[in-house]
């Protein structure tokens, strides 16, 4: 399993999933535009070797896991593994936790800068999209923070923008784990919150930081379990926080409980820049440490970015487990890549109003990131969007099969269809489309018979057709 970003890049090179760009590329839009187009073309991860205004020792690696091939490589699977196989591998491994190991030092301490030595502009943080609020240093990152009451350490992937030489602004949503801990335990007591922004850790640690994982969960142990080996952690220079020792860059900060800065707008994972601006948090940087020849890791956020694979995958498994815990007859869940972590396809043994309402309640009670749910029966493969669209188009009753729940204070403020007013109040709604047959319909007399080869012919006829297929002149 990969111990750092560099091992991972070697593996991607070997599988044909890394493209190295020797030509000089400007950090101001050019790098972002190339990386964005690569995402939209399902292209390889990119390693930019020469960045305008910066020495050749500092390079940029973008879009680490923006395709299923690269997620498969991350897990040591064959690159052409199916989405279903990758989901299954994650689900198999996520139950096993391996606690991290603390080590005395590591490569992330090769260069240590404190106080006035620090200048965030020494790093080639890209202006990713034209019109973003600033240069985003934290995109493929991992923010490490700490709950002083429960001692819980949170790893989360949140966006952070360079504000000045020693200041960052960020937007971990107020409903996020970091946002919740910061408001409840630091802002309320007017105490600055120590935070470490980790850039370029091993790929599974970033995967874990981006994962949908329960509050209070030990993400470092989850990363160890997923890797099959403990993550080695080293203490920060200016706080007690522990960070992966093999990381490329560590920015140690204090999140200020009584100060603000402009944050955003920013072209985000839903594939839009929604105007979420000016409601973030301000961080004062206390230390910056990095490896020799550091590699800045970047997620060129937008349509089909890294979240479209990894946040979707972990979100789907988290939804499945949550529904199981609430007694809902769930069989499988897919958060399809093109749904920008806003849509879930859920297959159940049976649907109907009671199940629909229970699913909506369960998935929106604390925070509501998914706003569109398609409920299907076991005959639908949730990973086959053709089958899903067919079920939605034909089985969802336009008047009786649609269930909506409204909420305030927990909506996803990045959801593009919400107005600026709704965004400000975190007000929104989720809808469930019930694509299952009504339970009271008789299977013999009322449920329509599906007109597919598998379902509308007797078994003997199907067997004969399949065994004789080539004799009819077909090649395949």
């Amino acid at each position: 399993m990969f111990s750092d970003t560099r091992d991972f890049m070697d593996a991607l090179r070997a599988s044909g999933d890394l493209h190295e760009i020797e030509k000089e590329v400007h950090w101001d839009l050019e790098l972002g535009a190339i990386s964005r187009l690569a995402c939209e073309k399902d292209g390889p991860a990119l390693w930019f070797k020469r960045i305008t205004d910066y020495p050749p020792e500092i390079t940029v690696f973008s879009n680490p896991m923006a395709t299923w091939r690269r997620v498969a490589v991350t897990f040591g699977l064959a690159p052409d593994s199916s989405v279903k196989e990758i989901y299954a591998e994650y689900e198999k491994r996520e139950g096993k936790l391996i606690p991290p190991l603390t080590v005395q030092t590591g490569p992330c301490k090769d260069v240590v800068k404190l106080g006035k030595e620090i200048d965030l502009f020494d790093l080639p943080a890209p202006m990713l999209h034209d019109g973003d609020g600033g240069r985003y240093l934290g995109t493929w990152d991992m923010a490490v923070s700490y709950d002083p009451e429960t001692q819980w350490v949170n790893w989360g992937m949140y966006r952070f923008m360079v504000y000045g030489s020693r200041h960052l602004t960020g937007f971990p949503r107020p409903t996020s784990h970091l946002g919740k801990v910061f408001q409840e335990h630091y802002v309320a007591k007017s105490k600055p919150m120590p935070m470490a922004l980790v850039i370029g850790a091993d790929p599974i640690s970033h995967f874990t930081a981006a994962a949908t994982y329960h509050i209070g969960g030990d993400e470092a142990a989850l990363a160890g379990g997923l890797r099959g080996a403990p993550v080695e952690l080293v203490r920060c220079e200016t706080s007690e926080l522990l960070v992966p020792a093999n990381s490329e860059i560590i920015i140690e900060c204090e999140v200020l409980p009584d100060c603000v800065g402009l944050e955003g707008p920013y072209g985000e994972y839903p594939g839009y820049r929604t105007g979420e601006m000016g409601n973030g948090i301000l961080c004062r940087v206390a230390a910056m440490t990095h490896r020799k020849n550091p590699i800045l890791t970047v997620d060129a956020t937008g349509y089909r970015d890294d979240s479209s694979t990894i946040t979707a995958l972990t979100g789907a498994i988290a939804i499945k487990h949550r529904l199981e815990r609430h007694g809902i007859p769930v069989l499988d869940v897919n958060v399809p890549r093109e749904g920008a972590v806003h849509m879930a396809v859920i297959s159940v043994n049976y649907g109907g109003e009671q199940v629909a309402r229970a699913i909506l309640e369960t998935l929106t009670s604390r925070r509501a990131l998914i706003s569109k749910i398609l409920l299907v029966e076991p005959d639908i493969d949730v990973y086959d969007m053709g089958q899903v669209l067919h079920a939605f188009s034909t089985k969802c009753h336009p008047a009786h099969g649609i269930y909506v729940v409204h909420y305030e204070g927990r909506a996803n403020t990045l959801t593009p269809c919400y107005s600026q007013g709704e965004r400000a109040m975190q007000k929104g709604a989720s809808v469930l489309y019930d694509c299952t047959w009504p339970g009271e319909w008789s299977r013999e007399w009322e449920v329509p018979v599906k007109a597919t080869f598998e379902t509308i012919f007797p078994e003997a006829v199907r067997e004969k057709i399949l065994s004789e297929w080539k004799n009819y002149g077909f090649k395949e």
Partner: protein
Amino acid sequence: MASKSEQGVWETFVRRPGDLKEGVETPMVLRDLRPGRKKYQMRHVIAMVTRQTPETTGSDELRIRTVVGVLLPESYAINILRDLPMELPGIPYHDFYQALKRAAAESPG
């Protein structure tokens, strides 16, 4: 009059069409568009803006972006009067622009 190359070029973001007032002292956040490593560094200031072109006034140029990041076609002349603190007092997750106004009101004129 300053030459074009010496003039500063700044950009700011506004929430609503009427938020930028001409001819009055206005607290605002600017980002510096001068090329180089420090491009896009932020600055909190009190400034006066007018819809004149920089060529006619010799002032720095201000470009405006909307809340969704769209660059507006008209540019303004800006006269930066004084700076406000980088660490602007305010409540995290609450409106930055309100914090900017409060800081300006408390700033010695």
